[in-house]
């Protein structure tokens, strides 16, 4: 049935009564009027009962479906934060010493004189989560196959997540803002713990505690391009749509990866696979680009990735084949490739 068809007046009346009876002020008089309506025609009460049935079914959905719908349709109005212009002009370029450590953690830390910053790069291997503290006491959990550059100066603590995912518990310092750059986005802490993830051009920022201010670097001239997100909110930047979407995510869910679970709600399969590959012993490749657009909601255990991949054809129209250098997902419609 399409919506441009004529609406059934009984159905519409039943829906109107359904909301009226649920309203806080529905008193005896409203109930009497409703009873009179149900007495007019037996189809009226039948239609009303069908409203009840659907509403109950939708009110008792499983957690994942419920969150999927909330995410898809509930928008939080972004709150512009006009007073944040000052934090954009970065301190003058400092002499940068880049230290790259692969698969290991940098232990020591060098203090430089004022206005001189040092850059340290942290990188984790496939299937390796890392946890460490920065010199100011800020705690970092770094996801697998992720890369983090840290540059502290007297004026600002700058961190860039150039690949993968990281979670920060920031020691707040008004004099020295903590700023994370991830893709095109900048996240500035306002007393906070938050998670950032970069998958190509796509960025998600989930706040688990406190607040952050998020800005698109390319639009920094206009203050209204900054928005504040609070604990429980997730901000996603989709390069294709080129817009920020604010929705909700339980803090425990945002950092589930720290406990070997990757949780996704309504994310394109391509993004899911790219993140799964940060944990997969055997990389998964999507052969047909049209599969990337399928959306997935659910949990993947990083210790059972093969099982998950094996079960994919049961939910998606795709084929899984094992090849020498990994697993390939292909569209069965493109046969004889």
């Amino acid at each position, binding site marked *: 049935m399409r919506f441009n068809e004529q609406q059934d007046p009984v159905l519409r009346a039943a829906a109107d009564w359904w909301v009226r*009876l649920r309203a806080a002020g529905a008193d005896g008089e409203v109930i009497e009027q409703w009873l009179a309506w149900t007495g007019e025609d037996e189809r009226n009460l039948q239609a009303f009962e069908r409203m*009840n049935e*659907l509403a109950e079914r939708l*009110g008792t959905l499983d957690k994942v479906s419920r969150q999927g719908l909330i995410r898809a349709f509930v928008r939080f109005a972004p709150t512009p934060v006009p007073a944040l212009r000052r934090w954009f002009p970065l301190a003058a370029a400092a002499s940068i010493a880049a230290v790259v450590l692969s698969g290991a953690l940098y232990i020591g830390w060098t203090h430089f004189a004022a206005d001189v910053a040092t850059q340290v790069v942290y990188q984790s291997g496939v299937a390796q989560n890392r946890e460490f503290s920065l010199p100011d006491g800020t705690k970092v959990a770094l996801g697998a196959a992720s890369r983090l550059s840290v540059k502290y100066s007297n004026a600002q603590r700058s961190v860039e997540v150039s690949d993968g995912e990281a979670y920060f518990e920031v020691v707040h310092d008004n004099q020295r803002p903590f700023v994370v750059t991830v893709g095109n986005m900048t996240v500035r802490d306002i007393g906070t713990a938050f998670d950032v993830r970069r998958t190509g051009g796509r960025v998600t920022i989930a706040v688990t505690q406190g607040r952050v201010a998020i800005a698109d670097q390319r639009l920094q001239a206009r203050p209204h391009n900054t928005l504040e997100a609070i604990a429980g909110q997730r901000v996603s930047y989709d390069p294709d749509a080129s817009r920020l979407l604010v929705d909700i995510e339980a803090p425990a869910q945002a950092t589930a990866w720290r406990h070997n679970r990757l949780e996704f709600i309504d994310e394109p399969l391509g993004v899911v696979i790219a993140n799964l590959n940060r944990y997969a012993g055997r990389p998964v490749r999507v052969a047909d680009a049209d599969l990337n657009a399928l959306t997935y*909601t*659910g949990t993947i255990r990083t210790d059972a990735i093969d099982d998950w991949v094996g079960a*994919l054809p049961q939910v998606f129209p795709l084929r899984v084949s094992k090849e020498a250098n990994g697993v390939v997902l292909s569209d069965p419609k493109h046969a004889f490739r």
Partner: protein
Amino acid sequence: MNAVTLSVHVSDIERLFREHNRALIAFLQCRLNSLSDAQEVAQEAYLRMLTMDDREQVDSLRGYLFKVAGNLAIDRLRKRKVRSDFAAVQSQDEPMDEYRPDHHAMAVEQVAGVRQALSELPAKTSQAFVMHVIEGRDFSHVAQTMKLSERMVRYHVANALARCRAYVDGKEGP
């Protein structure tokens, strides 16, 4: 209308049940969003009517039944809220229970029609509906969040409910 003192007899309750039980259950299910809770509360309401010993002044036994049932429903919603707040605290660290995509397939199927219906509606309409019916927020909360009047919120919810019902019926057959 003159109020009369009614002494309530079993036969009165039987007649109330015969004539109005279906509407009472529908009313309670609407308030409680649960058929089984509605049935329990209705039972309790009849029991209250039978054991009513102060011969209250009522002009309509039916009106009184719905009033008693409505109050019992409010009590139940209150208790339910305390329980769910408690459960929310308890389950904060619990993982989601779907580990494999196939566990998830049925839910996806069930939700797909509603999702399609909602996506064809104006954004405010679908948001108000999802917040009220799926998230379980009351009208005043939705109104505050969306900066709309409660009346507008109710209008949006009713509109979406009728559309979703029509859409789901179109798929499942009437």
